[in-house]
């Protein structure tokens, strides 16, 4: 299963390295969202205090694009059937797809982290908590996103449907990751680790769910 996961993740990342959709389209979009927030809030103090939330909202928007992209490459040219016929473990395919999304989102978060530090003048504290939170939150979003991504892939209204399906499900991730970042910035990591726990539970639940349910979704959709 893990071997298959690595194969699929490697394939997706290679595809990404060659097509550069994330670097050329998703990353500029995310930076643009940061600028839009600055225009909308129009107050340096408000921006700084709202930075953790704005950061994660931007990540979620970018995640929608990345997830859509990850599954639209499978719906073209019948590659989805090829994936099914390849004999790869469906759970491995799920982990691979989610893993590739995690790698892309983490790179994006690094960029956005620099963005909020430079543009909003936000100070980032508690590096261990920050990195740990970013990691589990991203895994959770990618796992839940991959489940809905494969479900909506190949449908004409898939692009419209995915945000409606995914955003309410990942609302707890937004709350928990934002609160953990606030706790890290305020130097009270104890509070933050509780939110980290919630994020970890979220990620675990959807990874487990995906490992068992992905086969049915891949087969039928």
């Amino acid at each position, binding site marked *: 299963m893990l071997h298959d996961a690595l194969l699929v993740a490697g394939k997706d990342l290679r595809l990404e390295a060659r097509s550069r959709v994330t670097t050329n389209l998703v990353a500029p979009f995310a930076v643009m969202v940061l600028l839009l927030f600055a225009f909308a809030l129009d107050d340096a103090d408000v921006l700084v205090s709202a930075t953790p939330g704005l950061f994660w909202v931007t990540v979620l928007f970018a995640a929608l694009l990345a997830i859509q992209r990850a599954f639209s490459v499978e719906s073209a040219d019948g590659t989805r059937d090829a994936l099914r016929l390849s004999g790869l473990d469906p759970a491995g395919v799920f982990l691979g797809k989610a893993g590739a999304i995690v790698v892309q989102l983490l790179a994006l978060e690094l960029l956005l982290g620099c963005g909020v530090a430079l543009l909003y003048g936000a100070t980032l504290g508690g590096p261990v908590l920050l990195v740990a939170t970013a990691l589990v939150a991203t895994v959770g979003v990618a796992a839940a996103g991959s489940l809905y991504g494969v479900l909506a892939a190949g449908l004409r209204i898939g692009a419209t449907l995915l945000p409606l*399906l995914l955003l309410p499900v990942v*609302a707890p991730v937004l709350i928990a990751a934002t609160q953990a970042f606030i706790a890290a910035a305020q130097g009270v990591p104890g509070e933050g680790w509780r939110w980290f726990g919630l994020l970890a539970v979220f990620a675990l639940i959807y990874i487990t769910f995906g490992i068992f349910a992905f086969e049915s979704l891949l087969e039928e959709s």
Partner: protein
Amino acid sequence: MTIDTAADPVAEPRRRFPGVRSEGTGSRGSRVLGLVTLAGMAALLLFGLVLSPQDPGPNEMGQTVRIMYMHVPVAIIAFLAFGVTAVGSIMYLWKRSEFWDLTAAASAEIGVFLTAATLATGMIWGKFAWGTWWVWDARLTTTALLLVLFLGYLAVRRLPGPPEQRSKRAAIAGLIAFVDVPIVHYSVDWWRSLHQPATVSRFDPQIDGLLLFSLMLGMVVFLLAYWWLMIHRFRVALMESRLEERGLDVALAARRAEAEATAPVAATPAGVRP
């Protein structure tokens, strides 16, 4: 040429779908249940609006307490409805029977309606009790997210595809949404407790006498209403699914009849006609 309607292949499937009664979704049992529910609603109005006293408790809710007889039962039945959807989804994935799929679908639809009613009544009550339509109270926020989650589920149900695929997809989507409910609950609960020491207690827990009776009556009446709606929604869904199965047959028969009617003319080359 006149068409013999008795032998018409198009008319035949219209007559009766197996398992579905042609006269409608009502049956003797559902009619009795419907009448009992209506009588219960009338009794609830009587008890809730006339017979039960206004709130004597320390919260000074006064007359506004009366909305509780609708709000609380509707909220609890809405949660029950989503529970039924989750059970239906699990049972569908296990048994692969149309019964459980349609049960999950019917219950989710009613649950979404009841959740919207919960939010509406809660907001009206909040306007009078708290002076504002909306507060970011843990329960309100959780309920709002629940509504959107299951609206998504209903959207998945409407996606095109072969029936078996749609059912399986919907069952999995229903479970993805359902396992999120406790996480949403905890996250929102913790989130709100950061900002206010404790959520305002919505209703005085020490209610008794006629108030408690009216509340219990509301529970029973809305449970009956849910049951009645479930029966009818389920039967409508079953009819839709039968109609869809027959739909292709009907279309095929129509094309075939059309082809047969035009074939002799088309097959004869022009000018060779005797």
